[in-house]
């Protein structure tokens, strides 16, 4: 009994070691990292591991900050309440004057993703958002490219007024919940981040199987991790993020995210989103 307990303790200590970095770092202010549902940010276990990983390498505390929607995170970041945030490309292009890219995730070998139009699995006819006239539609977030901007642009291109095209539309404030809303039939269609849908298809196929991808958009720049322009001392964080793909622990964490790596992104990645935004404003 005692022996077993000691073994268990030593095991825990081995795990705990990275979570409690050198004492000197405790004095430093924590790194405040805002997250949004551009990735599966409700997995507390994964966040704890990632946080431990970052704290070990950065030698300073890290706090993940989550809010109900993209807008709050964006406001916190712009209001200097956050050091960095994992946002969607849409708010980034809108606030490009104040924000700069810290790192861009690499998904399926490229820093790109698509928006999906999903419908319930029993709807076998819908091929485009235009087939959903007069139906109920679920958006992810008004600050989401894939979950709002892309369908808006699609409708506008078709000459439809988004406000009247659907009988009813609502926000679920998360991509995963768009999938749920469509799966249970609450909405007849939904706009969702293709990366999230694909990742969930691996983790919870029973959920995604109740939906069908009716249409997917061209590729857009993957939701980036951004900072305010001119934030000092971010190199360590960027270096750590970019280095994740080179450490076994970092690879394991990336695998949990269903990502390949983080890379230095280029503003040009987001020109497609910016073009959409501009088109919608005309």
């Amino acid at each position: 009994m005692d022996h077993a307990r000691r073994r268990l303790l030593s095991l825990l200590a081995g795990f705990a070691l990275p979570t409690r970095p050198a004492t000197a770092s405790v004095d430093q202010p924590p790194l405040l990292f805002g997250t949004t549902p551009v990735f599966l940010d409700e997995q507390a276990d994964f966040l704890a591991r990632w946080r431990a990983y970052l704290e070990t390498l950065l030698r300073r505390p890290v706090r993940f900050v989550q809010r109900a929607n993209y807008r709050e995170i964006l406001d916190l970041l712009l209001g200097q309440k956050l050091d960095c945030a994992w946002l969607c490309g849409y708010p980034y292009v809108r606030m490009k004057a104040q924000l700069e890219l810290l790192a861009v995730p690499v998904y399926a070998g490229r820093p790109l993703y698509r928006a999906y139009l999903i419908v319930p699995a029993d709807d076998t006819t819908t091929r485009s958002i235009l087939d959903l006239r007069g139906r109920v539609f679920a958006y992810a977030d008004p600050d989401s490219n894939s979950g709002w901007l892309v369908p808006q642009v699609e409708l506008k291109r078709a000459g439809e007024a988004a406000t009247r095209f659907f009988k009813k539309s609502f926000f679920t404030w998360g991509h995963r919940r768009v999938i749920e809303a469509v799966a249970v039939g609450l909405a007849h269609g939904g706009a969702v981040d293709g990366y999230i849908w694909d990742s969930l298809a691996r983790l919870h196929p029973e959920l995604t199987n109740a939906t069908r991808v009716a249409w997917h958009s061209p590729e857009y720049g993957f939701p980036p991790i951004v900072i305010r322009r001119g934030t000092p001392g971010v190199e360590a964080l960027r270096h750590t993020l970019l280095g994740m793909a080179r450490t076994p622990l970092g690879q394991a964490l990336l695998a949990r995210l269903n990502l390949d790596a983080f890379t230095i992104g280029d503003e040009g990645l987001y020109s497609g989103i910016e073009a959409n935004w501009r088109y919608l404003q005309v």
Partner: protein
Amino acid sequence: MLDDLSYRIKIPLAMSLVIVATTAVVAATFTWQSYRQAHASFVHHGEALGKTLARTLRPALLHDDVWQAYEILRTPLERPVDDARVLILLDANGHVFAASDPRQYAILTPFNAGLRAPATPANRDPDLKSSVLESEDGRWLYFSTPILAEDGTLLGRLLQRYDRKLVAPRFVDVSADALYAALAALLLLLPLGWLAGKHLTDPLVQLARCLGRVGREIPESIQCDFHHGRDEIGRLAQSFEDMVHQLREKQALERHLAQSDRLAAIGRLSAGIAHEINNPLGGMLNAISNYRRRGGSDPQAEKTLDLIERGLLQIRDTVSALLVESKIESRALTPADLEDVRTLVAAQVQSKRLTLHWRSAVEEPLPLPSAHVRQILLNLLLNAVQASPEEGDVTCSIGVSNVLTITVGNAGPAIPERRRQHLFEPYFGEEGGEGHGLGLWVTYQLVEQLHGSISVESVPGHTRFSVVLPLEIRRES
């Protein structure tokens, strides 16, 4: 057919039926009560949930947040889609805002299930109050809870739709419990009831059985052991015993009267015969006497006359014994008379090596004719000696109070029943016993003349004759 059934079956059966009926009624009442309670708690639970949800749903309605409303509606449900429990949020126009089962209740479709209020009285303003409704076909139960803005404006309405079958499992459980309890109670009560019924009817059955014996059997042999209570059966049993007792007495009296009558008839008959015989007999004896007085007879004739005379004398002895003539003597009975009798039987007592236990309380002369009493005592003692086995005991006890009591006992075999019925009648022993069998007849006649009574008890090894003679002789006119 029920009338022919024995009470031994009828009463336990009736008790069992009452027990079964009572148990059934209790179980049914219990089940009904439990069902009502289950239903009431179901309604209470539904209304409480409705109130809680209505509060949390208000912001969702105000902010037009379909997803939030859906998540709230889904929270209390165990399964995402459950046809038995569906929560529906209607907007102010009565259209579906969100539902826990969106496929069945699509957003913005008008809700028209055709509800009616089942038992509750019509509300004056049903829109602003919680109410319990049911669908037209009665399958669904709806709890309707209004969702009001702060100023009381109706924002929407929460409907909880429940399958009535949700209450059924509780009902089935409760019914099963009641059934098991009832069966257990029956298992315990039925044997008890049957036993109690049997206990009640047993005396009645026994009484009936005893009653059935009356008339078929002689009253002496009817022996029934009843319980002696003050209840109806106890009183009935008491009456029955009294009746049997009276029957017995009546029968004994009849027998006694018959015996007395018979004895009196025999007495008259024998007296008549004796007189009829005595007259010619006296003549014949006188003729022989006269013939002898004249003398001159030859020896052969003399021998014949002797033979005839002895025969005639024997006839006279027998007849006189039969007659029991009342030769009332004036001399009173003295203790010496009794001692004389004792001396007379002493020789026979010794010859059979018997022991005579003698006890006499007579110490002074008594107003009784000594010859009669001597004859009675002698007869009884001689009978006792004769009946007693060799070396047996013979007891004789003579007591005096206002009557003279003579009790003579022996240890011989019991007197046979057949013989006892004619014990005091003239008896001519066909079994070749001693004497002419007139001893008890004579004794009976003597006792009758003295207005006394004679009785006998006889069991194997003990036979006792008792004679009671009143000391004041009532002279009959």
